[in-house]
């Protein structure tokens, strides 16, 4: 904050003599890479989205905005958007509070806390595809963990991933399991920056544990929490990797996210124009969210 003010108060700061040299040397490679690998592909996707194109030859069947119409008409797309919303809701309401609670418990510098930190963080290190395959087995009603539990309880086996109403719950469980460790680590790092003297002062003044948490720890964690919300929303919008091994988007497209919808309905069907339209829509959603969120909540961070 203070640096921002300083920059404003210092009138017409001039670039140092060697500043231009730095710009001339360092900007072109970065600009080139950005153009070739970010800007151009995005522009191409936007261009393809106006064509009916199967990926062979050049796109030559211009169909205007029809691809966008097809996307919105597709009930699986609406379902994918809802699923992304659910992921965000579960991230915000369950995953982040859980991560914060666990972080409070394991932030102490004692051996067992360090061990638990590692254990909780491990799922995050695991490759997404591997996690998907492992959980596919866990949920399996024939030979998996679900089968053993059902047999132990003397119940009929449950096939969670085969149920159109419950399969996505399975996906959500895996998401919380896999990513809460990452946010826990963020919060542990944040907690270590909380000023101890403030907490001690409050304790001497007679503040209880909850009051100390609510009025000292939480506000001091503010930047970290805002950052974690940003990560978790953008992360859920891009969710793809373990949906594929876990459910393949099924049954009946009930577990697709926007990105897996793009893959199954665009890429595997060789409808490049259609897939590009989905990509453009996803891009717009992400950009709008990022701008609005940064404007509203992360202005001071």
């Amino acid at each position, binding site marked *: 904050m203070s640096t921002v003010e300083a920059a404003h108060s210092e009138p017409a700061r001039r670039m140092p003599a060697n500043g231009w040299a730095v710009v001339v040397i360092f900007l072109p490679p970065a600009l080139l890479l950005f153009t070739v690998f970010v800007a151009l592909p995005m522009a191409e996707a936007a261009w393809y989205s106006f064509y*009916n194109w*199967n*990926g*062979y*030859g050049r796109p030559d069947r211009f169909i205007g905005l029809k691809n966008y119409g*097809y996307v919105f008409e597709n009930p699986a797309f609406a379902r994918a958007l809802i699923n992304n919303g659910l992921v965000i809701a579960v991230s915000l309401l369950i995953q982040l509070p859980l991560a914060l609670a666990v972080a409070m418990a394991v932030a102490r510098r004692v051996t067992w806390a360090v061990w638990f930190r590692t254990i909780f963080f491990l799922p995050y290190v695991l490759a997404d595809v591997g996690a998907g395959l492992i959980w596919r087995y866990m949920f*399996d*009603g*024939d*030979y998996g963990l679900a089968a053993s539990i059902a047999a132990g309880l003397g119940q009929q*086996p449950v*096939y969670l*991933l*085969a*149920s*159109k109403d419950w*399969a996505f719950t399975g996906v959500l469980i895996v998401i919380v399991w896999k990513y809460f460790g990452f946010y826990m680590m963020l919060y542990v790092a944040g907690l270590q920056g909380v000023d101890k003297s403030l907490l001690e002062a409050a304790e001497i003044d007679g503040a209880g544990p909850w009051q100390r948490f609510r009025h000292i720890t939480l506000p001091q964690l503010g930047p970290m929490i805002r950052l974690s919300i940003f990560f978790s929303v953008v992360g859920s919008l891009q969710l793809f990797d373990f949906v594929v091994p876990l*459910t*393949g988007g*099924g*049954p*009946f*497209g009930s577990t697709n996210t926007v990105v897996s919808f793009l893959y*199954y309905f665009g*890429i*595997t*069907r*060789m*409808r490049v124009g259609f897939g590009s339209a989905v990509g453009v829509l996803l891009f717009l959603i992400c950009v709008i969210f990022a701008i609005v969120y940064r404007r509203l909540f992360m202005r001071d961070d």
Partner: protein
Amino acid sequence: MNIRRYALGAACVLALAAPAFADTNVTILHVNEVAAAKTLWDKIAADYNAAHPGVKVQFKYLENEAFKAKLPTMLQSDDRPDLFYSWAGGVMQAQDKAGLLKDVTADLADVESNMSATAVNAFKVDGKAVGVPFEMGEVAFYYNKKLFAQASVNANDIKSWDDFLGAVKKLKAAGITPLVVGAGEKWPMHFYYAYLVVRIGGDGALADAKANKDGGFKSATFVEAGKRLHELAALDPFQPGYLSTSHAQSAGVFGDGKAAMDLMGPWLLGMQAPNSASGKGLAEDDIGILSFPTVPGGKGKATDTMGGVNGFLVSKSAPAAAIDFLKFFSQDKYAKEAAATGAYIPVVKGAESAITDPLQRRLASDLAASTYHQNYLDQDLGPSVGRVINDISVAVAAGQMSPEAAAAAIQEAAEQQ
């Protein structure tokens, strides 16, 4: 002294460089996972390389989905394979339309005259050959003889759809899961829908739908196929959790003897044992084959078959050696070897006599006597319409979609294409 040294050096360089100039590389990209086929193909390539110094033929493997996703880009780059695996049908037509395939009609006419006409025609676009088939398959019901006996179902009595439904009911009553299907991957369920279309609409059904006759895919044939599939599914014949079962898992369920029938291609025989929980699977003697039943009032014959036709397509820049290799590859002796080792059912005429496996022999004789052979619908129609057929097959079977809505969805996909 110096000159001699230079001359020697130059000679060495030339000696090293000369074979490099003569070297022709022929790369062949495929997805075949059958070990027997891979072994045979590597052997054919080695034989060819030994007989043709300066030519290096190499088979390269990619996983199925990766192959399908990468191929369009590869074919349009400089890194394109010279020959590549194909299921014929819609994708092949799209590749031809984009000018990525070579016309090999004249080059391979001799070779093809010795092959099944159905298979050869599958690899033609507008009468022009763009590749060579090597294998043909038939989708049929594989049944567990012991479970049939246990429910006192006689496979020979199952001729019509009603006989089939009767058998399903009998199995169900005996506490046996009648059918196993890997509907998590969708295409296994499309076998039911596709066969019903062929049995109900006969050999012209698909051509008519493509030509938009009688409402295209909304025609009575496709609606009726959906109704029959739903009629079957209403008996609850599939294994529990079938909507999330993968193809490999389903083969294991059959191999474990946990379900009586599996509507599948010939590769099931190689997959049922390794995917079973016991690792042993069923003994071949305990497995029987049952053709898809006829549907009362349907135009299709009992001898019409549905199954894959696979071959190699020739990409536009393939060297002459690639075509020469295809001729070499299509020789009678290699086709017979494929037949004898059970790698696949070859399309070279007469090679089926080398098949030793009785089940494969049965499939080969069905194919030889086939009155009409339909390629898989999801290949024939291309990925865009084909995947919709897979989707609706599962949705109709699970009662999530009406047969009419399903037919309309296919038509819509065809119109958007």
